[in-house]
């Protein structure tokens, strides 16, 4: 292996710093949301140098708001961000790289082997998170990709340092000849020490995060309630489930609604709800409450859901998968959404666009008027109480766990 352990350790240190920058920026963006407000994200391969993304449609936003961006979400509002764990791990790799650099003769091979083992942690995590991002979220997050790259580079640096260890220094450095091979030691204790260090480097920031996070419980149940929940016109669509009654207010072509559904399903708490859906398309062709069509085609897809009866959920899932395609096509050709719906669900032909279903969709919007709902999606009402907007993304698991707690207690023997 060419080079010395110190050369490779320099590469490892560089990778660790890069990893710290990427995961640190992700963690910073995550922490911003703890103030319950809306923020732009630093979605760039050069964090801090690019402009802040405020569209809410970037891959970084999708990833950050996904149920996979943090752990322990029910215990803590937002949970512990995965990127914070990444910061701890990269900080440890930086520490171990600096030790090699400060150790004039390189480091002991077992220590470098332990460092190499540590470098597998971000690599394995990157592989898992990368697959989730591409396969589940269908999102490419630049900060995440930067982290994956830093992980790969750290792996190469740690591998190179390990393989180059134990070579006679004289063969490598004429100016500082020292024929003594780098000392060796037992691997197991070094691995044990590395594991302990990994725990310390991660537990410290996690403990600080958990201890210092703002209290969000006091906001639960303070964001309004349904004033007239009766469904006289049969506009609520049954999404299944048993348990506490819940009404979701969704637009089938709204990216935030898609993310919200993914979070609700991933949380496992959706199964504790008797879920009903109110269609609220943010499309001016049927919704007079919006001045322009934020989501062109949403009225047509909503009609298709009302026409589909028991297959409404299938239409919703289909629309979630093709949101951008439907919106883009309908913006160019207003009839495109109808063509796409009919190609996928021919059974709604004869209903779609007809006065009866248009009138029913209108009644759906009027249900929102009767209950004086805010003109936005998504919204969730649990047992008539509105989940605050700030709690529908990162804080969803935490909030639902507490809103459902009384019901769970009542059901207990």
């Amino acid at each position, binding site marked *: 292996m060419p080079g010395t352990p110190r050369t490779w350790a320099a590469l490892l240190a560089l990778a660790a710093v890069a990893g710290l920058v990427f995961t640190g920026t992700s963690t910073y963006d995550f922490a911003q949301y703890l103030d319950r407000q809306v923020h732009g994200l630093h979605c760039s391969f050069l964090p801090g140098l690019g402009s802040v993304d405020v569209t809410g449609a970037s891959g970084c936003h999708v990833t950050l708001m996904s149920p996979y961006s943090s752990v322990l979400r029910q215990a803590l509002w937002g949970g512990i961000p995965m990127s914070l764990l990444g910061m701890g791990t990269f*900080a440890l790799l930086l520490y171990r790289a600096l030790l090699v650099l400060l150790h*004039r003769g390189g480091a002991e091979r077992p220590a470098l082997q332990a460092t190499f083992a540590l470098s597998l942690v971000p690599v394995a995590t990157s592989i898992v998170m990368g697959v989730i991002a591409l396969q589940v979220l269908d999102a490419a997050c630049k900060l995440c990709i930067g982290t994956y790259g830093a992980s790969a580079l750290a792996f190469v640096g740690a591998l190179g340092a390990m393989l180059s260890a134990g070579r006679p220094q004289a063969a490598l450095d004429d100016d500082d000849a020292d024929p003594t091979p780098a000392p060796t030691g037992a691997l197991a204790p070094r691995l044990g020490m590395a594991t302990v260090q990994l725990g310390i480097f991660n537990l410290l920031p996690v403990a600080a995060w958990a201890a210092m996070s703002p209290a969000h419980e006091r906001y639960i149940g303070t964001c309004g309630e349904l004033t007239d929940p009766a469904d006289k016109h049969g506009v609520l669509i049954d999404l299944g489930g048993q348990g506490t009654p819940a009404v979701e207010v969704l637009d089938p072509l709204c990216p935030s609604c898609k993310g919200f559904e993914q979070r609700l399903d991933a949380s496992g708490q959706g199964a504790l709800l008797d879920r009903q859906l109110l269609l609220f398309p943010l499309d001016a062709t049927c919704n007079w409450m919006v001045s322009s069509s934020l989501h062109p085609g949403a009225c047509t897809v909503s009609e298709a859901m009302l026409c589909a009866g028991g297959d409404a959920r299938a239409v919703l899932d289909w629309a979630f998968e093709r949101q951008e395609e439907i919106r883009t096509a309908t913006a160019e050709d207003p009839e495109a959404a109808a063509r796409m719906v009919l190609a996928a669900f021919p059974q709604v032909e004869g209903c779609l666009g007809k006065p009866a279903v248009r009138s029913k969709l209108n009644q759906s919007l009027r249900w929102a008027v009767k209950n*004086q709902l805010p003109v936005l999606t998504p919204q969730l009402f649990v047992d008539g109480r509105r989940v605050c907007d700030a709690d529908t993304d990162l804080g969803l698991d935490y909030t639902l766990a507490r809103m459902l707690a009384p019901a769970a207690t009542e059901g207990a023997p």
Partner: protein
Amino acid sequence: MNSPTSPALALGVGAACALLPTGLATAWILSAQGRLEAAEASEADTPVAATAAVADEGYCTPELRKVLRRVLTSCGLVGADGAAGRGCQPADAAAVATLAGGDFNALFLPLADRAAIVQFEKNEAALGAEDSALVDKVFAERGGASWFLVVARSSPEGSVAHNRALSEQRARAITDHIHATFPDPELDQQVGLLWLGEEYAQLGADFCGWQRSGGVDACTTDDLNRSAFMAWIDCRL
């Protein structure tokens, strides 16, 4: 020279590296906490999303609102007098509108894109297929409107009493069709009926360009007034 790092230096570097993410995370969280407290302190300044509401379009002039309120009140749609759907007869309409017929019609001119005229056969009050389709189309295009007005008329042939009855039948034909096609327990609180017979606010030829059944050529003033004018009204009262 193979000199190990001094324990103190190693410990110092380790502490610095370990505390770096901890310190940054703490700083960011405290910053968020500060913004949260500041936002709570200035809650009144926080922008909130609009609340869902029925439409109130620009054509809802004070004059139109005044007439609409009078008509809807007197015709039993508004208020708790239990007379929902009662409708207004010609004398009622003229009295409550307190407008000349031409001025009454002029109030609805801004509704050219929202309204339609169902034209009936002479001395008939039955809807044909084309008429029903037009009613369905107009009624389904409700948007954010709160009130659906049906204003039926008759041409001057025949007696005044007969034409009053005929225009009422025409108005009822429209609402019966709507009831059958769009079942809604609240419909009677939304649909206002006026039957004007031949006595008040006859339509002029300038309404030929409006959306209507009956064919392009059937547009004499008699054709236009054997009719029911209908429109959703996007006004809040």
